[in-house]
């Protein structure tokens, strides 16, 4: 009996080892066949995947742009300014925009990009994407093959910023079919294989219109779990990835000869709305004097950078100031309002403890921020009660039922401040749910809406945000960092761009 069991055990172990042995052999084979020095294939992991390649649908243009497949007429550079890509130059007279396309601009099949095709793309994106429906309402005029006019209903100074949106990518609509698995566009790369919801491989666009493409191709692996990306990087199976967590960055930093890390403040903002209908001026100011963004930045371990305003301080429209943290001044303000510190360490007035309701949701580290704010407010004697909601938009943002409402959103989506300001500070704006109402700010917002001069726009934006800060309507906490990890030798993956939707480009290279 014992012998039989021993025999069975040996057979089982032998089976396992033979299975493992097969695996090992095959891996070596893969390594031998694909890692030729002449071929430059960049291996990338991404935390997302898409089901089809239509850049006009939902946010998919972000991803086709990341894969280096699509380009728009314009793009936003690292300083958040609009620069031409397919477009050559632009003229504007009132609400008439005349745009000239670069002579060399062409699709990957060699077909030149024409005015007519660009107009069809804009109209198609307007039909397909609810966020761009206004493009179906504009009128268009083809001047010649490379020049066309867009007539907006009223002056629309941020049209070029909108045209820089990756969702408004220009593709050859006649040759791309339903864009389910193939796409003919203008980017430096073309689709090689595409598995919906999974891996996409791209190869060099042999007919790229704007110079040489350095890489031969790239493979984008869908890895939703960040720990897998880190392990794959350490195992040499990928060359680069973004959205590197703070812990992973610390691990990779220890091997500086193997990996490079690049961190920039991106465009996603953590902020809180102070409800003016419930909190007095003094209490709001006391809260803003207490909440310490630098402490939050330290606690979040490098994944965010403390901010003064909603935009990066590198942008012309990110030049605002706020009072530094001053707990004593905050306490003084409360005492001047008649609050008295009780034996429990909380301020109270008329027998009522000063209690604020902090509404938040458990994403983008807002749960941690809420807990830290609770601690900080306790230090000056304000009792914070935390209310966790699963969906902020359907609850406290909609009802205004909060004292402090935490939220996270992309503040700068296309290199212009108007989008965020119109969403959060304009009267009846969807995120102006804390009762902010300032005549001067509203007047400036209306001016900003139609102002065409970029410098003047930045100046107006700074004034508007400063009013909101001075009125203690909001508290801007931190901007998420965009951290890119690269194996030594990999370069130009748009690692310095604060925008998530740029990655692979013609200059991307690996040694």
């Amino acid at each position: 009996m014992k012998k039989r069991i021993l025999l069975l055990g040996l057979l089982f172990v032998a089976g396992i080892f033979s299975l493992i042995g097969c695996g090992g052999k095959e891996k070596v084979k893969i390594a031998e066949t694909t890692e030729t020095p002449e071929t430059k294939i960049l291996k990338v992991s991404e935390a997302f995947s898409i089901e089809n390649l239509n850049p006009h649908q939902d946010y998919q243009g972000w991803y086709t742009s990341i894969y280096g497949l699509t380009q728009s007429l314009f793009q936003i550079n690292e300083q958040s300014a609009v620069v031409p890509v397919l477009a050559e130059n632009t003229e504007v007279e009132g609400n008439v925009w005349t745009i000239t396309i670069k002579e060399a601009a062409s699709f990957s099949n060699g077909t030149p990009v024409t005015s007519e095709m660009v107009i069809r793309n804009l109209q198609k994106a307007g039909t397909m994407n609810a966020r761009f429906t206004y493009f179906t309402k504009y009128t268009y005029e083809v001047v010649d093959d490379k020049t066309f006019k867009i007539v907006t209903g009223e002056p629309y100074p941020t049209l070029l910023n909108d045209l820089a949106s990756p969702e408004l990518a220009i593709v050859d609509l006649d040759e791309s079919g339903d864009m389910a698995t193939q796409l003919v566009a203008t980017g430096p790369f073309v689709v090689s294989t595409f598995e919906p919801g999974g891996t996409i491989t791209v190869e060099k666009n042999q007919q790229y219109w704007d110079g040489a493409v350095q890489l031969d191709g790239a493979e984008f692996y869908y890895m939703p779990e960040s720990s897998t990306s880190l392990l794959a990087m350490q195992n040499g199976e990928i060359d680069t990835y973004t959205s590197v967590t703070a812990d992973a960055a610390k691990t990779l930093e220890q091997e500086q000869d193997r990996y490079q890390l690049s961190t920039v403040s991106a465009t996603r903002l953590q902020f809180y709305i102070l409800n003016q209908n419930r909190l007095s001026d003094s209490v709001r100011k006391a809260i803003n004097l207490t909440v310490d963004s630098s402490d939050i930045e330290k606690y979040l371990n490098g994944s965010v950078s403390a901010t003064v305003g909603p935009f990066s301080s590198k942008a012309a429209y990110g030049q605002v100031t706020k009072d530094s943290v001053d707990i004593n001044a905050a306490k003084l303000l409360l005492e001047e309002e008649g609050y008295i510190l009780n034996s429990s360490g909380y301020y109270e007035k008329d027998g009522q403890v000063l209690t604020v309701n902090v509404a938040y949701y458990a994403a983008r580290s807002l749960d941690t921020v809420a807990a830290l704010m609770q601690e900080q407010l306790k230090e000056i004697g304000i009792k914070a009660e935390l209310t966790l909601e699963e969906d902020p938009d359907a609850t406290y943002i909609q009802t205004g039922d909060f004292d402090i409402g935490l939220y996270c959103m992309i503040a700068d989506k296309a290199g212009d401040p108007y989008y965020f300001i119109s969403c959060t500070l304009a009267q009846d704006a969807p995120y102006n749910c804390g009762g902010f109402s300032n005549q001067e700010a509203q007047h400036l917002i209306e001016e900003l809406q139609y102002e065409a001069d970029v410098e003047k726009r930045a100046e107006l934006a700074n004034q508007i945000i400063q009013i909101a800060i001075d009125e203690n309507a909001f508290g801007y906490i931190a901007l998420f960092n965009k951290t890119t990890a690269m194996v030594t030798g990999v370069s130009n993956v748009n690692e310095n761009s604060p925008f998530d939707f740029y990655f692979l480009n013609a200059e991307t290279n690996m040694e």
Partner: protein
Amino acid sequence: MKFYILKRLLYLIPIMIGITFLSFLLLYLAPGDPAQRKLTAQTAVTSDVLEQTREEMGLNRPFLVQYKDWFLNMLQGDLGVSYKDGSPVIVKLTKGMKYTGILAFSSFLLSVVISIPLGIYAAVKKDKLPDSIIKVFCFAGNSLANFLVAVALIYFFCIQTNLFPIIAKGNAQGLFLPTLSLSIPFMSRLITQTRAAVLEQLEQPYVAAARARGMKEIYILFKNVLHNSMISITTVLGLAIGTLLGGSVVTERIFMWPGIGKLVMDSIQARDYPVIQGFVMIMTGIYIIVNLLVDISYHFLDPRVKE
């Protein structure tokens, strides 16, 4: 038996209606707006755009009208399209089920092949060294978080020993680690159950009688004891099939396995109701059929069990 199977299959109809109605109601009542999730995945939108999208998605219709339309379409094999990306739900679920099915089958097979012999062996060697080692394995397998097991497997098999690549591109190599990760907790439960069932049988008088008659130990174990232990083992196996086919979010995410668990988790986060409804319906069917098969197997394993 035929009448019994038919009766059980007929139960499927009211159960299916009840469960799909309940899940539809819960999704309807749950906070969160699918249109908002779809549009504001990255940026904010105006209320006009939001309202227009709700209208297009049919979310402004009364609850009962929405459920009726979904149910009638479902009867015709149309589970609708995903709110998230507009692709047909049936295609998404079929693809997810295919991958989950492969992973579930391999995990089930590996677990059965390893666990039942080990469970018997542990029972035979009760309170001796092999039994203690197996008990420690079962304790660890039951206690360790799936996430930890998965990362530890990658660390050992991919990084330390370099036996497997992390990026396996859907081939047989890529199946090994997720299978092992998913099997470890299941194996632990199955070994424990098998050991307990076999121990119970080994104490029965018929075993002593068989030994007294001079029958070989291996014959007693595999012919009598295992056969009589199979009812409780089959119960565990039946439950496991349902669980394995439901997909494992953690395993699928870590090993980049495009199964149903990950699909459903993404759909819940995106409030992709048609996909969630389709999944609920499929899982209801699977659980009912698996339970029916387990019940039928009881009858064959022990004819004393009545219909």
